[in-house]
Each structure stands twice: as structure tokens, then as C-alpha cells.
């Protein structure tokens, strides 16, 4: 059992570095963020490990390599916005924000502690870098549409990225927002679906079918791309070449695995919010290297 927390590398991955070097740095960061997330959940005895592991590569690439954000000026008007609509992924979000330098990573040990700013669902009033208070599913996408409209109105370069869970798409508010976003041709808006195929208790397709998700979103006026949500290079290339089509918002279906890459968590629905034992934590950390 490790007693000291994983140390996160802090700062943006330098965009002027060669691609291979950037990807190597992102791989190191993603592994460290996953390790730190597991340690946080273990310590707090609460969290959503499975979905955090599935979204970790997406969030790492966005926060460390793609988003134009500045921890020194977290409210800069023209900043890019990242909305973590699956707000139960708070441990992942906090670890990634700390890695980007929004706050001291020592704060992560206070995850879920009494009076900690690091609540089970993120609070923008208390945590720098958090853009929206999410938690109830289906809230982030409408907010992201509003952010993208504001940027359009202001002719700002600001882009908005919204990460939604796949099960989350069963909430009707998402489809209201997809309609509104498609109607307004918000090409500065990108939705990423963490398509791990599992919701809290079962698969999405056996619960309330989402497929054919690409066709549905295309029919709502969005340009659609599918990507391996654990392929850092593919994610980086995709996010650096937006919009997918001119005059359309971007709908990215990121194929992921719940619990990835931990062997005993991967694609196991019980790891939605199961807390690892000391032995499981140790085994997972060893797998992450």
C-alpha cells in the first residue's frame, strides 16, 4: 500500500513541442491523473472510479493540450470553456485541473472532506477552473449551448467543450439542447460523449437504447466524428482540427471502456461507483505503472 500520493506533473503540454513528445507527456499525465484519482476515491471512500477512468484520456488531452485557459486568469473573457456535464466525474476533473495548475495539488487530499471546496460534484464558486455546477445529469449541454451563443454574439474566439456521459443522454434536456445547438449552427461548440456503454446499473443499450447515436446527432444538425477515446493521438488530432464541418456544431463519440485500463475494472458495471480496497488500489496503481 503506497502511503504518499502520486505527484502530478503540472502545467500545459507545450504546443510547440513535436507531436510525439506531446503525446508522451500526455501519456505520463493521464497515468498520473488516473493514479491520483484512485488515491482520492480510496481516501474519501466515495467516488465514481469507472467513469473517471473511461473519461481520463479525453479530459487530460483537453485540459492539458487543447483548451486555451490560463490558471492565472481563470475568468478571462475569451477563454475556452470546458463543461464537465457528468459532474460525478469530479475526482477526475479536480485532478486534471490541479495538473493544469488551477490549484495546488495538495488540496486533492481534501476531496470530499468536511467543508472542502472539492465537493462530490463541482462548484464553480469554490474551485477555479470549474465552469458550471453539474451533478444532475443533462445540465451541462444546455449551459454549453449558452456559452457558445455568448461567444458567437461577442465574436470571441472562445470555444466550448462539453463532456457528457453516454447514459446521461437519456435525459431529455440534452436533446432540447442538441436541437438548439444544431439550429444555431454553433461550430464553436463540441460535445464529447464518453461512450463506455455502461450506466450505473447496466448497459445503455439494455436500459434505454442510444444507438444509432451518430445518426441521431447528425439528424439534429451536428457534424459527427467517432474516435477511440483512449487514443491520445487520435483525440489530439481531432480536437486540433475542429470544426469537423463548417457551420455545424461538433458531436464526438469517444469509444471508451469503463474502468480503463485497469484489468479488473474494465467494462465492469459495478465499478461505476465501487470504492477500491487497499489491495485493489495497490494492484491498480501497479498496472498504471
Amino acid at each position, binding site marked *: 500500500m503506497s502511503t504518499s500520493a502520486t505527484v502530478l506533473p503540472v502545467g500545459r503540454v507545450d504546443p510547440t513541442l513535436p507531436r510525439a513528445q506531446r503525446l508522451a507527456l500526455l501519456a505520463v499525465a493521464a497515468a498520473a491523473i488516473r493514479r491520483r484519482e484512485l488515491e482520492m476515491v480510496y481516501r474519501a471512500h466515495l467516488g465514481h472510479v469507472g467513469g473517471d477512468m473511461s473519461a481520463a484520456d479525453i479530459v487530460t488531452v483537453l485540459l492539458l493540450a487543447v483548451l486555451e485557459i490560463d490558471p492565472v486568469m481563470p475568468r478571462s*473573457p475569451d477563454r475556452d*470553456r470546458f463543461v464537465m456535464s457528468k459532474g460525478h466525474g469530479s475526482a477526475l476533473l479536480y485532478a486534471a485541473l490541479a495538473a493544469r495548475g488551477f490549484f495546488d495539488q495538495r488540496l486533492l487530499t481534501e476531496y470530499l472532506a468536511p467543508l472542502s471546496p472539492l465537493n462530490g460534484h463541482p*462548484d*464553480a*464558486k469554490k474551485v477555479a477552473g470549474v*465552469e*458550471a*455546477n*453539474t*451533478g*444532475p445529469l*443533462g*445540465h451541462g*449541454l*444546455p*449551459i*454549453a*449551448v*449558452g*456559452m*457558445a*451563443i*455568448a*461567444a458567437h*454574439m*461577442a465574436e*470571441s474566439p*472562445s470555444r*466550448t467543450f462539453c463532456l457528457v456521459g453516454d447514459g446521461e443522454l437519456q435525459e*431529455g*434536456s440534452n436533446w*432540447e*439542447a442538441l*436541437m*438548439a445547438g444544431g*439550429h444555431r449552427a454553433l461550430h464553436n461548440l463540441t460535445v464529447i460523449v464518453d461512450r463506455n456503454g455502461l450506466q450505473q446499473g447496466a448497459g445503455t443499450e439494455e436500459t434505454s437504447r442510444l444507438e444509432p447515436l451518430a445518426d441521431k446527432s447528425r439528424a439534429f444538425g451536428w457534424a459527427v466524428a467517432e474516435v477511440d477515446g483512449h487514443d491520445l493521438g487520435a483525440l489530439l488530432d481531432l480536437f486540433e482540427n475542429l470544426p469537423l464541418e463548417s457551420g455545424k456544431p461538433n458531436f464526438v463519440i469517444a469509444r471508451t471502456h469503463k474502468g480503463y485500463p485497469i484489468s479488473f475494472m474494465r467494462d465492469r458495471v459495478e465499478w461505476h461507483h465501487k470504492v477500491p480496497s487497499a489491495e485493489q488500489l495497490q494492484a491498480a496503481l501497479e498496472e498504471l505503472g
Partner: protein
Amino acid sequence: MTAVTKNVELMDCRDAFATAIEELAAEDERVVVVCSDSVGSSKLVGFKERFPHRLVNVGIAEQTLVGVAAGLANGGKRPVVSAASCFVTARGLEQIKVDLAYTNAKVVICGMSPGVAYGELGPTHHSLEDIAWLRAIDNIAIVVPADPVETGQSLRSALAHDGPVFIRVSRMGVPRVYADHYEFQLGKAVRLTDGDDATIIANGTMVSRAVEAARALRERGIGCRVVSMPTVRPLDVDEIVSAAAETGAIVTVEEHSVRGGLGGAVAEIVVGRCPVPMEIMGFAGFAPTGSAEWLLSHAGLTSAGIVDSTMEVVGRKEK
């Protein structure tokens, strides 16, 4: 649609809203309006002509309506949401709680045509619970203006407020209560008449009726203090405690359910700070079929009804 504004002396507060929002938009380019289809019933045709790019119509989608407003606020805009009160407060309630109140988003929601303004359209379209469920949520100011003057001023005040504000904008015809030089202050009640025997606390469409009732009561030898309480939160606690302590009996009257609205807010203060006999006037349940005006009469929300309730509560006081 019920033609509620039949009397030429009565005014539709939505017109004051329309005038005020155009003025405020002209003054501050950050002001945008967000609506859910209801451009006409929100009286936004003029705004749309003057500021076509600052009207965000999300379609008939109240959850997205509120969420988009929160996103616009994050993006530096000052959004004013305009939508039928019954729909925006009920369908968008979780978004109001999380995206606005918990986030402290600077968004103004104008709940249009509240209470029983939609008359014969029935309880699906009545908004008799809006104040109650918003009052249960922390950190959102709640304003129920009495007339066009107060409607316009409260909108200006709301846009200057550091947090979310809900304003109920009536379509029921109301006479003018306030002069032009009236100055609305968020959280401040207004004493309209003096009297020692009882206090009538009213807001919205009931304020003019309360003043009328006080006149009738005076002829019967009962002196009534009439307090207009446009702000249900933050509540003017001192004014309520003074009313209880100095007049010994309180009647509240509102175009809302008797559960959890202005009456509930006043009662929460009275019971803890200065218990006196109280009567809460409003709607006891879902309203039957009828025009808005008829429904108010049917529920006793007339000056005569207020007189009766006041006599009753004064009688209890004297026991």
C-alpha cells in the same frame, strides 16, 4: 385567451416589462433576452425588432431555456429569461436551483402571466405554486410587482443584483399603485396606509385590492395598515415584526396558493418573532373553470373578501 385587461384604466404589467427591457438593452449591450417560443405573449416583438441578435429563442424547451441563460451569463451576458411562469418555474426548476441559484448566476427570470392570469385555460396553465417552490430554493431573489411602475423598476434593480432574481410579471389588468417617483428597493416593503387594528400584507395584483379594502374597513371603524411586500426574498423582516407588534393581527393576500407563498413567508417570521392572529388569503387548491377575474372573486381575492378576512382576524385578536 382570456381578455383580462378589459378595463381601460387597468394596465398589463407585460407592457411595462417590454418598455423596460428595451430601455435596459439600449443602456447595456450585455443585456440579452432568452425565451422559449413566447415572443408575442412576452411582448417581445418590439425588442426583437430593435435587437434581433440579442433575442435568443431556444424553442419550446424550458430546461434548455434556463441552462442556456446560465451559459450566457458565464459568457459575460446579462440574460433576462422571459417565459410563462407556470412552465419555466416547474419544468425548469432543477435548472433554476442548480444552474442559477447554486451557481449564483446573474440571470433574471421573468415569469410571465402568473397566478390565474390564463383563466379558463385551467390549472395546467395557472402558476399558483411558483413562489412556493422558488422560495424553497436558496439564493434566488423573488419579486412580485404590484403595477407597471414597480415592474419596470424591479427589472432594472434585478439586473443590478449580484445573483439570480425571479420577477413575476402579471398580465392581469391592475390599476396603477405607484407614482413615477416611486423607488423600488429589493428587500424593502412599502407601507401604503396607516392603521392600528390590523395589517394587510399584499403583493402583485392584490395590492390595489388591499388598499381598497383598507378604505372600506376604515368606514367600519377599523384602521388598517397596508404593507405592499413586492420582495418575497429577501424578506423585509423588520416590517413584518413591526406589523405584528404594532397592529396585533395580520392578513396576507396573494394571487398564489395559500401554501408556501407570501403568506407562508410572513407566517414563518410571525410565529417565531411575534405570534399574532393571522389569515392567509390565496387559492386553496386547483382552480375551477372560469375567467381570471371570476377565479379571483371565486377565491375571495377581492376587496370585499379582504374586508371579511380582516374583520375575522381582528375578531380573533379581540377574544
